[in-house]
């Protein structure tokens, strides 16, 4: 069940009506039932896997908490084997057999990846790590724990919540008053507009260009590559907006997944602001255990490369994702190595620390590096990624190819792209300045005026309706 659908609207209406009307004791069972129904709609029988893993991890964490040092490790390892092992089996068997062992297609598994497995496996694994380390006690109440794992706003595409942030809210059930509902509704509508108006519109052009790069000019391909940078950000942050919006309407607060990632001065900085719940997961449960930056420069670089390679593979079982991860690791390694050199260069160019030009140059450069790496992320194969890069370089020989660009994106839409991005740039500038993501809008006329504007924008410019296929969120595939 995707957020931008009438089915979800009906589901959420029923769920939240029950949530607000039912007495306190029945609220949690009602919420869990809703979460399971939500998952079963798309996940079908994989619901049993989700429920099985949830129950097993709950029991193992309780056992680990009570056990001595050895047993603690044993139960935790068993739990991790179950969750991360399950993820590896379901997600990577095909890749391992086909790409590493060269198995015939007839011998490859044909199962469909369980919906949201990358996300709920990491939620469960993170919980086991935390309990084992004694960061917080194991949850005694199975109902609370099941809601924590299966919480429908986060279940399919995150944010990957931690036990110390979401579990206390589930335990104590936050008040879901009018203010929370209003904020949640605005956040949801904002995300919906972001997804259907901006991200999905960009995807029309990006998909067309990537479907046959040879059919478009180098200039058109370059624009498609840049638009993909915006598409993936807007798509994923729209999901987070909608997830936070739903949770907010029920009174819950989710972890923020993005913090103006493109308004950043380095690739390293970008990774602190992009998919925060995942990068912090890797930092805490992989990078730090590997030694982090405490064991010298060479070891730090190696640790970064390992983390990014794993992160790449987490996104998808393909060489393109692995290489995408490694490229981002290499960016950071190169950043560390060349730091003194770059500082010297900036000084020679007279771009001192206090100047306004340097941050702009660094921001553009970082965006360029990140955008280039997205080519690997978006391409079906490494060959296609190489072809796309070569194709863009044709600009040097044949020029930009405006005619081809205009056949990909008609002039009227091309002109409106900056305008379409403007509200979301405004949102990120607010975040970068430390302001709340969206204004509070306490005046009901201002609130409903903005809602009206968003809904009208969506109704006219959104990608939906006759002639359009509903587009899934990019991160659903992971």
């Amino acid at each position, binding site marked *: 069940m995707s957020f931008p659908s009438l089915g979800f609207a009906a589901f959420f209406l029923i769920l939240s009506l029950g949530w607000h009307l039912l007495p306190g004791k029945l609220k949690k069972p009602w919420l869990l039932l809703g979460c399971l129904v939500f998952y079963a709609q798309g996940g079908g029988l994989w619901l049993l896997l989700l429920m099985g893993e949830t129950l097993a991890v709950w029991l193992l964490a309780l056992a680990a908490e009570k056990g001595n040092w050895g047993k603690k490790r044993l139960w935790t390892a068993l739990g991790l084997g179950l969750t991360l092992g399950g993820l590896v089996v379901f997600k990577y068997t095909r890749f391992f057999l086909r790409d590493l062992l060269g198995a015939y297609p007839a011998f490859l598994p044909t199962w469909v990846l369980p919906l949201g497995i990358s996300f709920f496996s990491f939620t469960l694994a993170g919980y086991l790590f935390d309990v084992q380390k004694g960061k917080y006690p194991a949850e005694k109440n199975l109902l609370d724990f099941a809601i924590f794992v299966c919480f429908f706003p986060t279940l399919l595409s995150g944010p990957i919540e931690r036990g110390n942030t979401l579990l206390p809210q589930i335990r104590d059930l936050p008040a879901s008053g009018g203010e929370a509902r209003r904020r949640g509704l605005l956040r949801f509508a904002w995300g919906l507009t972001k997804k259907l108006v901006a991200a999905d519109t960009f995807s029309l052009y990006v998909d067309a260009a990537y479907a046959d790069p040879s059919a478009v000019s180098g200039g058109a391909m370059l624009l498609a590559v840049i638009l993909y940078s915006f598409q993936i950000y807007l798509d994923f942050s729209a999901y987070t907006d909608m997830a936070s919006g739903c949770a907010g309407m029920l009174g819950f607060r989710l972890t923020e997944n993005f913090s103006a990632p493109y308004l950043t001065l380095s690739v390293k900085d970008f990774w602190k602001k992009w998919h925060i719940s995942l990068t912090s997961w890797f930092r805490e449960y992989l990078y730090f255990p590997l030694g982090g930056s405490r064991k010298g420069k060479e070891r730090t670089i190696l640790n970064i490369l390992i983390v990014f390679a794993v992160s790449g593979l987490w996104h998808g079982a393909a060489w393109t994702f692995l290489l995408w991860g490694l490229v981002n690791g290499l960016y950071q390694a190169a950043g560390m190595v060349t730091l003194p050199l770059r500082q010297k260069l900036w000084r020679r160019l007279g771009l001192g620390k206090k100047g306004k030009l340097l941050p702009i140059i660094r921001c553009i450069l970082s965006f360029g590096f990140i955008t280039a790496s997205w080519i690997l992320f978006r391409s079906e194969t490494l060959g296609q990624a190489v072809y796309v890069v070569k194709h863009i370089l044709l600009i040097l020989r044949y020029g930009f190819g405006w005619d081809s660009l205009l056949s990909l994106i008609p002039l*009227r839409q091309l002109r409106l792209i900056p305008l379409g991005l403007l509200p979301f740039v405004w949102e990120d500038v607010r975040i970068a300045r430390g302001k709340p993501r969206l204004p509070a809008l306490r005046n009901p006329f201002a609130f409903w005026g903005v809602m009206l504007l968003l809904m009208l924008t969506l*109704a006219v410019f959104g990608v939906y*309706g006759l002639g359009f296929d509903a587009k899934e969120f990019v991160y659903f595939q992971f």
Partner: protein
Amino acid sequence: MEKRKPGLGLRLLAFFLALLLFLTLTWLLGWLLMPQRKEYGSLWEQYRQEPERSLDLLFFGSSIVYCDVSPAWIWEESGLQSWVMAGPEQTMALTYYYMKEAFKTQSPRLAVLEAGSLLFRKYQDYSRANVSTMPLGLNRISAVFRAAERSEWKGLLFPLYNYHARWTEAEWADAEEHLHPAQDMMAGYTPLARSIPQEPRINRDRVPEEETYLANLAWLKKIGDLCEKKGIRLLVYLAPSAARTPYEVTERIGADVREMGIEFLDLSDIASELGVNDELDWYDPLHFNISGAEKFSRWWGRMLAGEPAPRPEAETELWKKRLEVLEARKEELQSG
């Protein structure tokens, strides 16, 4: 001091105001972005440009009506002012709502309905074309729920669903066409140029599916009741065609219609009486081209002359102009 929270009344007022504005604006935008229909039936915007209560008779039905019947030639023969308010493969249920809507601005003395739709399925895949041009109102909403496929409901109730993507191509002139629609000089008729020789035959495929036929008859009964209530004479006919419906079926239709107390004319075999040339006057086995339509329309004019009598306050200048435009169009099509 903390600001006072706005009261429930104020919040509800803001909500309903926004909702009302949303519904109004999305409807308006959907209507403006929808391409204006200019031929092949369902020309509601043009129909509403006719001077109120100026028409003597109205034709209803499917493409077999808007391709075969030209009001300007009927006027030349009889002085009767008519309009074709038919739609593509229009089902009997849709015709009922068309009639209800059409009678809001016109009170004809005679309504003529082609009965081929008694043999149609419940849905003929043209609900969008038939309903999307209907004016907003109870008739349109009823037509959506009672006569259109469920898959079409979203787009018919919320036209932006179907047409919003046209913002990429729509020009101001498109909106102008909706805001100031022109009168249709063909009065709902769509002239067809091509001529394909036809061998008269019986189309054995045109047999009713019992359950659907009975449902269609029930809608015809409602149409009969509506016309009776409005004091409008109803004439039901079967159109001439080169691939006629089997005799046993047309006879059954005739019997069923007459049993409801509705006038019925079986014109299935009238082509030779009309002087139709099977080599030149057909567009396809069902539809006349412009020369065939002229023969059929003039026949209607002669047949109806005096019954009913033309209104005394006739729009003579308009109809003279219509005839000129039609003759010019005929010449253009036949020479090209």
